[in-house]
């Protein structure tokens, strides 16, 4: 079966649409609430969803996602339960591509073979591991070499420079371009050479180029819209959900607006 991310990317390209990708921490406000939020976002037209697996030491994240991770762990969320939730979502008909955003230790502790097996069994389409640069990916790539295994989504940064071609070499699905230096959720803090950097990556990339970190509204990416293939929103959505008691309606409204505005830019 073709990977859901790749299928979605193909479809977006055919329709000439930009992708809208969101991030939410799994397990908030609770497992049932998380499921409702996933479904609301699919209905609202979100193209890909990143599900954050909470970890005790999220060094790539700013205060918003750190806090969400902490709360989720306190509520007892763990990888096993999120796999359970994924199975239910797929059984209940959710077709949206879903990517795990997680720290390497969580997968390592679970056991990489078993991790990949559970991903296949529960319909996880990709994994993003922000503390696993190219040089450390050998082991997980070995484990991912199986039919139906999720894609390891590659990240590039504004200072990746000569590393970009090597990173893109085996990349699939889409490439995640981090918009600035540092951690998630620093709004309006894009790198000073953002446009140049994205243009360079776009030139070299055979797969869609997504921009993430610090994006709140569709208009934030207006200056780069001709270069990128989509935008990723994380911390801002979490803040919005917190402020609205995790009501699916809030997610639905925000996501459908963003998607619409993104494609009108």
């Amino acid at each position, binding site marked *: 079966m073709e990977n859901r991310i790749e299928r979605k990317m193909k479809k977006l390209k055919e329709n000439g649409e930009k992708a809208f990708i969101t991030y939410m921490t799994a397990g908030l406000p609770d497992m049932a609430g998380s499921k409702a939020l996933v479904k609301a976002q699919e209905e609202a037209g979100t193209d890909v969803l990143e599900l954050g697996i909470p970890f005790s*030491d999220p*060094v790539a994240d700013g205060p918003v996602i750190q806090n969400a991770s*902490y709360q989720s762990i306190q509520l007892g969320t763990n*990888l096993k339960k999120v796999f359970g939730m994924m199975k239910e979502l797929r059984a209940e008909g959710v077709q949206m591509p879903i990517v795990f955003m997680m720290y390497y230790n969580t997968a390592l*502790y679970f056991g990489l073979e078993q991790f990949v097996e559970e991903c296949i069994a529960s319909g996880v389409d990709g994994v993003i591991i922000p*503390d696993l640069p*190219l040089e450390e990916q050998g082991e997980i790539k070995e484990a991912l070499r199986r039919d139906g295994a999720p894609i390891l989504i590659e990240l590039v*940064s504004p200072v990746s420079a000569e590393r970009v071609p090597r990173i893109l070499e085996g990349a699939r699905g889409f490439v995640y371009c*981090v918009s600035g230096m540092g951690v998630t959720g620093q709004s309006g803090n894009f790198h000073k050479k953002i446009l140049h950097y994205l243009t360079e990556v776009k030139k070299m990339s055979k797969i869609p180029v997504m921009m993430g970190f610090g994006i709140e509204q569709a208009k934030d990416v207006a200056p780069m819209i001709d270069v990128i293939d989509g935008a990723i929103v994380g911390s801002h959505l979490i803040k919005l959900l917190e402020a609205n008691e995790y009501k699916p309606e809030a997610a639905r409204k925000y996501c459908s607006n963003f998607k619409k505005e993104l494609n009108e830019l």
Partner: protein
Amino acid sequence: MEEKMNKNDKRYFGEFGGQFVSESLMNTLKELDHSYEDAIHDEAFLKQYDYYMRQYVGRENPLYFAENLSREYGTKIYLKREDLNHTGAHKINNVIGQILLAKRMGKKKLIAETGAGQHGVAAATGAALFGMECMVFMGEEDMRRQELNVFRMKMLGAKVECVMSGSRTLKDATNEAIRTWAKTAEDTFYVIGSAVGPYPYPKIVKEFQSVISRESKQQILKAEGRLPDVVMACVGGGSNSIGMFADFIEEPSVRLIGVEAAGLGIETGKHACAMALGKPGTLHGMRSYLLQDEDGNIQIAHSISAGLDYPGVGPEHAYLKDSGRAEYVSVTDQEAMEALMELCRLEGIIPAIESAHAIAYARKQAKNMGEDEIMIVCLSGRGDKDVHTVADYIQSQK
């Protein structure tokens, strides 16, 4: 393309080490490695480092034959007096080296993490000496335990950033330092205090701390005409111990013993024994033994000593353990405090609580040793910073 983890990869000690950091830091680490290799092979740089070690830090420090302690325990016990260094601990050896490197790389600002505050004080001191801006990340809990060191850092002109996330101790101070570094690496140098973190840090810290064993080896050969039978040091992240072991690793006749903090006792779960009970995992850019719960989240370590309550250990120690070259043992808070009090009374030396862990195990180890056998214990720091903790402890025992 896939560079598989293996023993020929210089970034690894066996299966431990590596660079588990975000993509945006990879070029920074590469630049650091190149600059370090360049510096360490440059006579002028080494001369400069040596100058500051002698004139500023006060090296070489003595390898003191602890007469009374030796008599009490029936074996020859020598103490490597890192407590006599400027700023009161071994931490300054590494800080001076890293700051000289930072200057060479053209960095203007320093950041550092600290647990007990000794590394923070050393970093603040080096920053003052070399005219650089310095921000030290310290957990709220540690700031409370080590109030005196917080004040010292401020006097020296550093900004102390209070870390309120997670355990509010060294683990989270390190997380926050890494986050800030990722934002500011262009003009900021991260001075890591222990033999931890992504490659090349464990290598760099070891190099600058190896002065401890280099001196000790010469000193013991002069005093005794032979190598010691046992070399011992406390292990938190593992910087004084890797420095104490370094020049003895290739001497198979020398037993290397690292002493971890067992806190309230290993059986209580409140300890910092990453080697005894940890499993391999990734944290702070490295793969090593870590204390983790059943979901792979990092557990909070416990020790009466702020400098030892770290849930991980430097990757080279993990390798030395697995290869059998070094042994790792532990002592409890209570054993460490008893040893601390005894060293005060027997030798007139107030050790840091961290170092008292090594002294505590030395007392146990001495029982298996003969009168003519020789043990070197690294007295990594002095205990002035700990007098409040000691007073509270004595009070709680009444």
